[in-house]
């Protein structure tokens, strides 16, 4: 049995799908952030897998992933700061309560 490119892409896709699903359904802001991490992680896997299977002699994908991890970290930090911020304001991290502005 071969370990083909698809076999690596499928877990990544499932992870991405989970991320989307989680984002849409979860109510806790932090849970949503977790879903986002899943999505970003899935994309990272994509890059790495493509790099390995399609352009094995190069490192673009790997570096892209590396920087993406950095960016993800920055995003997460900022997002968590904002979550804590809003938690201070409304004493809740429930997304259902964060829809005062609409229409």
């Amino acid at each position, binding site marked *: 049995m071969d370990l083909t490119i698809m076999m690596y892409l499928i877990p990544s896709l499932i992870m991405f799908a989970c991320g*989307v699903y989680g*984002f*849409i359904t979860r109510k806790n802001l932090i849970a*949503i952030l977790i879903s986002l991490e899943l999505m970003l992680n899935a994309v990272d896997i994509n890059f790495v897998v493509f790099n390995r299977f399609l352009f094995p002699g190069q490192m673009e994908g790997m570096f892209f992933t590396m920087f993406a991890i950095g960016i993800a970290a920055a995003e997460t930090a900022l997002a968590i700061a904002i979550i804590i911020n809003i938690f201070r304001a409304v004493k809740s991290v429930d997304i259902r309560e964060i*829809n*005062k502005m609409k*229409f």
Partner: protein
Amino acid sequence: MDMTLPLLILVLPITMFLILGLCGMKMSHKLAGTLGTIGMGITAILAYTVAFTYFFSGNPDFVTAEGVRQQFEVFNYDWLAFTPTLIVQLGFLLDPISALMLVVITTISFFVHLYSLGYMHGEKGFQRYYAFLSLFTFSMLGLVVATNIFQMYIFWELVGVSSYLLIGFFYTLPSAVAASKKAFIVTRFADLGFLIGILLLSFFTDTFNFVELTSNPGTTISTLSAGGTFMGCSVVTWALCLIFMGGMGKSAMMPLHIWLPDAMEGPTPVSALIHAATMVVAGVYLIARMFPVYCLDEASMDFIVIIGAITAFYAAVVACAQIDIKRVLAFSTISQIAFMMVSIGAARPELHEGLGYMSGMFHLFTHAMFKALLFLGAGALIHAVHSNNYTDMGGLRKYMPITHWTFLIGCLAIAGIPPFSGFFSKDEMLTAMYDNSMFLGVWMTMVAGLTAFYMFRLYYMIFWWEENPHYKDHKPHDSSWTMSLPLIILAVVSCVSGFIPFGHFVTWNGEPYDIHLKMSVAITSIVVAVVAIALATVLYRKKNDVPAKMANSVKWLWTAANRRFYWDEIYMFVTHKIIFNIICKSIAWFDRHIIDGTMDMFAKVTQKVSYAIRGLQSGSIQTYVLWYFAGAILLGLVVWMMVI
């Protein structure tokens, strides 16, 4: 011929109008009236001079060596060039009928000016009245001297508006306002036909000029015929009938006659001038002007005759059942103009050298005089008793002798009793009609009889019958000299003008000929007239109840005639109920609710949609992201499908 005099004839009245119109309010009544009258007097003298020069100077421009009278354009300016070839000109055409009309118009106008000094004395807006009279005279003169049909149309409209202004002179009276409006709109409608007629005519012949059109009528007709036919009639007939429609409106032919009786709301001298002597005969004049062309088209000539004959009879019958003396005179006018129409319509160059044409114009002339006389007389009566209805009169012969005698002369003239002028002209007309067809002759003789009957009925009801009890409080008397003088002069003219050898002056082709009385026709008509007068004498000389009984025995007929056979009601129904209430209102409704509603609907729909889709912006991040994700995927999917 020097153009100064003709030009002055036109310039003087319009100058008067401008002076009186712009500065009139600053003048005293007397000054304004005198100014207007003197101006008109001078115009009349100028017009006489011009007419005299035309008829008698023997100038080769005016009459050839063989004695054939010529058409002569004294001046002709380009006014508006529609195309390089189709140019509207303003000019002065001198020929027998325009010279004749110049005389008639200025004469009557002068007398009316003079008469009005007394009649309108002390009325508010006296200056305005004289201004309008001057405007009317100007327009009418411009109309008759028109060198081309478009100039005629221009002045045609102007006389219309002058008439509107004068009918509505007493503008605070709702009836006067309504009457003026009616007069204007009805004639305007007729003018629409006139305009379309001109459009057709000028399109095919590429000219407006009367001389060009009528000097070679055959060419005119053949170019017109090139237009083919439309709805079974040739373009020639269409064009000529439509032009005649303009005449029908102005000359109050059926079914466009309804404005004229109402027009009597205006001051009586105005009725005398405009609605008896001058403007209303413009239709006849128009046909006469175009006669060489008309006479080549049987269909339109027949149309004129039919309309005229029906109108003449209708108006005569209605006149028998009116109470208002001015209305009687008005219907009599309609009837008489119809007479002229029939006469011209019945005329053929091959019959008696176009006798009908000559006699029609002759009657136009005599009728202008005696009908002006009658109206001015009626004015004097109304002035005396302050009422239009003969039921408020009766037995006035003792109180107002001058008026009585002059009025009697007028009645005799219109009834066609020799030697008064009406006899001669009417006799010639009847001759022409008998020539055309026996039936027409008999029919019109009958109308002539009716004319004699209702005029004498009127005469007896006013001057005999029974003295009205009101005279004790307010004794009626003859008027001042300014009012009596015109009456007397016009009476004299009515007595003698029948002897004018009219055929020497006015004929359809300018070639003079002598008039011969055709004895059979003359005797018949005299007999008919005398019998009618006798009948009127029996019925109305003394107060009795026979007329009332007779009226009662045919009550429906009498009522119908009194109500003018319900023409006004029909018009009312059509204009108010159908056009105004149904068409106009529905169009206005359509505009507000459908067209505008559609525009508003766009706005409303936009608002509604905007409201309906507001849920998209639900405030929940998750929904936002759902849309985001769906959008991204769909964007790819849809375009992928398209690319395949």
